[in-house]
């Protein structure tokens, strides 16, 4: 079996064909380890748990994001690093720009605390189920790599961060935290989370569903983004693309030419 790996060594990008027929291989990750141990120790990639849970080994196989540890290699597979991540070496990419989107949504200025005199009600099984799948995220960045919006807007928050925003919006503990001490002039975490996903966020998504298709944890960021849009509309936000859209002339402005409501 032969695999093509897109390599980047000292700034030079090239394809290299590896024959792994003689190596004992069950997963793509194992093939990469075997190549590194027996053929070329300079082959560079990230990996960790081998069991699809640490998120380190996401790559693209034949243009599709997948975890190397969860992929069974096939003859002719072409392995490439993730999209929209600076390539450091071979399949190893710098995930810090993509993952810094989490900070934009999660960071808080003020420390919130619970009022110890009124213990919060326990979470019910139904409440936990609302964000169960969303909290399965392993930060592998597959969805980010698959998202076509990043090709035109590098500041787009991206699917996993928006899913995380929805995960906390649906967690009553997150919003409850400040209700007891809330001064009405201060935004609640609920509304400040919504505020943070407006710009370069939910309205920039084209709802193409690529993120959902590639998620190894079967999370559905597209749906989470649609839910965030619904909540935003209820809270009085509106789709800026609709407001800016000209119906008479071609749209070269906001929205990157996509109309998110046009049925992608």
């Amino acid at each position, binding site marked *: 079996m032969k695999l093509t790996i897109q390599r980047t*060594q*000292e700034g030079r990008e090239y394809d290299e064909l590896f024959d792994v027929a003689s190596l004992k291989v*069950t*997963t793509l990750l194992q093939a990469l*380890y075997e190549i*590194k*141990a*027996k053929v*070329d*120790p*300079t082959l*560079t*990639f*990230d990996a*960790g*748990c*081998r*069991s*699809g*849970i*640490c*998120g*380190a080994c996401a790559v693209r196989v034949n243009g599709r994001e997948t975890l190397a540890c*969860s992929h*069974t290699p096939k003859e002719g597979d072409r392995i490439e690093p993730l999209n929209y991540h600076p390539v*450091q*070496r071979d399949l*190893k990419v*710098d*995930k*810090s720009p993509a*993952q810094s989107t*989490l*900070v934009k949504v*999660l*960071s*808080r200025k003020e*420390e919130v605390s*619970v009022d110890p005199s009124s*213990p*919060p*009600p*326990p*979470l*019910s*099984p139904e*409440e*936990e189920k609302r*964000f*169960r799948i969303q*909290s*399965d*995220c*392993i*930060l592998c960045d597959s969805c980010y790599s698959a998202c076509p919006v990043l090709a035109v807007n590098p500041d787009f928050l991206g699917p996993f961060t928006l899913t*995380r925003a929805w995960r*906390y919006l649906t*967690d009553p*503990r*997150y919003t409850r935290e400040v209700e007891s001490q809330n001064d009405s002039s201060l935004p609640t975490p609920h509304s400040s989370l919504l505020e943070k996903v407006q710009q370069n966020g939910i309205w920039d998504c084209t709802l193409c569903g690529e993120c959902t298709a590639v998620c190894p944890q079967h999370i559905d960021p597209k749906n989470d983004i649609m839910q965030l849009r619904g909540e935003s509309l209820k809270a009085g936000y509106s789709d800026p693309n609709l407001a800016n859209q000209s119906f008479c002339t071609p749209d070269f402005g906001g929205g990157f030419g996509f109309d998110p409501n046009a049925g992608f």
Partner: protein
Amino acid sequence: MFDLLIIGSGGTGLSAALEAASRGAKVAVACKGLPTQAQTCMAQGGINAALGNVEPDSVEEHIADTLRSAHGLADEAMVRTLCESGPETIEWLDRMLVPFSRIEPSKTPHSSLLTPHSLRTIAQRRLGGASHPRACYAQDYTGLKILQSLYDRCLERGVRFLPERTLLELAHWEDRIHGAHFWDLANGEIETVHAGATLLATGGFGDLYHGYSTNAHGASGDGIAAALRAGASLSNMEYVQFHPTAMAGSSILISEGARGAGAILVDERGERFTDELGPRDEVARAIFRKIQEGSRIYLDLRPIPRETLEELMPQELHLTQLHAHIDPLEEPIPIQPAVHYSMGGIDVDRSFAVKELKGLWAAGECSDAHVHGANRLGGNSLLEIVAFGRLAARNAVEHPRMVPDTRECSDPQSRVEAIFQRRGKFNPYHKRKILGKRLYHDLGILREERGIRGALEYLTELTEKLPQTELGDRNRKNNRALVEYLEYENSLLLAEAVAQAALWRNESRGAHWRTDFPNEDPKFQRSSQTRMENGEVVVHAAE
């Protein structure tokens, strides 16, 4: 200059970071990969706390179960601290928004009066060796969800992360630790981070048994090895836990939760041969003996209703299909025991301070806080990492700060340059693989003097070959091979520590089983202590 440098970003490191940050300390968390790639994400079964949500339970029973499993090697006071902190730890994790699985409150008539109201709906399951269902869980993603939730809280609070830093050496002058030297993977250079206090949270050393461990690649005990080189004592290094059920071949873990839910162990004739819910050491030995007799052993999940499996163990179902090409709903899974956890580690006192070195603390799997003794109970390690990570951080930041010293004992530069300069015919990957297999057989579930001595001789041989063991990658930046080489060096040192301690303990107790000394011997109801003396690994009985 930080108040507290935490090395490792697993459950211990992140819990410690949040605790220290909440006390106003300036914290940095250095980690070998990215923060959420820590080993904690692999923990499935659960985290113990005597909430009594499903069945009546008590802290006293949790203590009794833990002590029973420890076979006389635990410190009862530390076990009490651990078990008493259970409910409060779950409450803290609930405040950190960890999404534990929940049940209807009507199903929790037994909750202890001491159990906080907010925890009454937390589901609990029984793990091996526990007298009650005590492990709180989040499906079979318990570790993942704890880790990701703590990471989110760290981001909210602006905790500083130093990713892709491999620990080379602790920075110290004589016995005073003032930070650490790292290999910065992306930039390909040594970076020294100074701190008023340093907390090791670097995890265990299961990957010594490369290929025969459920641990992530890279669980090479880097912090334990660095502490040993700097002058710390290690304790109970002979105590390595074998998990009874890893997939044969890949050593991918199948959680104890499976047996808790009703899965059975059978031989090729479909016959049961042991109590599935016994302590891990006993079940692992029972399986290993059958394998030695030539049997193949299987874990049969079919007694568990399909809906229960899909609800409780989605991850297991997926992994067995991927690695064993088996649908566990249809047929049993071939399994073998595999190295899972390091009970031994850096010897710490009751405040988690490393006894021989000032300014250094250790918590979690890299430490031996004397709570697991000869055999760790399932669900106690997640409790340990969160509870003791927080306690250790609290103690470390309250302690007077160390002052950085311009003088330095360790020499990280020479260590790295030596590796870059080595030329020769030996391949470190090849050696590491053989070492893993050798240790599994000679320093594994059943041990005897001849095998251990053989393993020691082999370790000496590998160490002597290091000058001809060539790093195949000369590039400085993003050199993963260098990191793996450093891990291999650490493995050689720690394997010697395990072997020497195993040779010292002429008895069988808990997870350490000597076929040439098959009984527990009261003389050995004490910890072993391992340290470096004049460059040699030496083992004594602890005082």
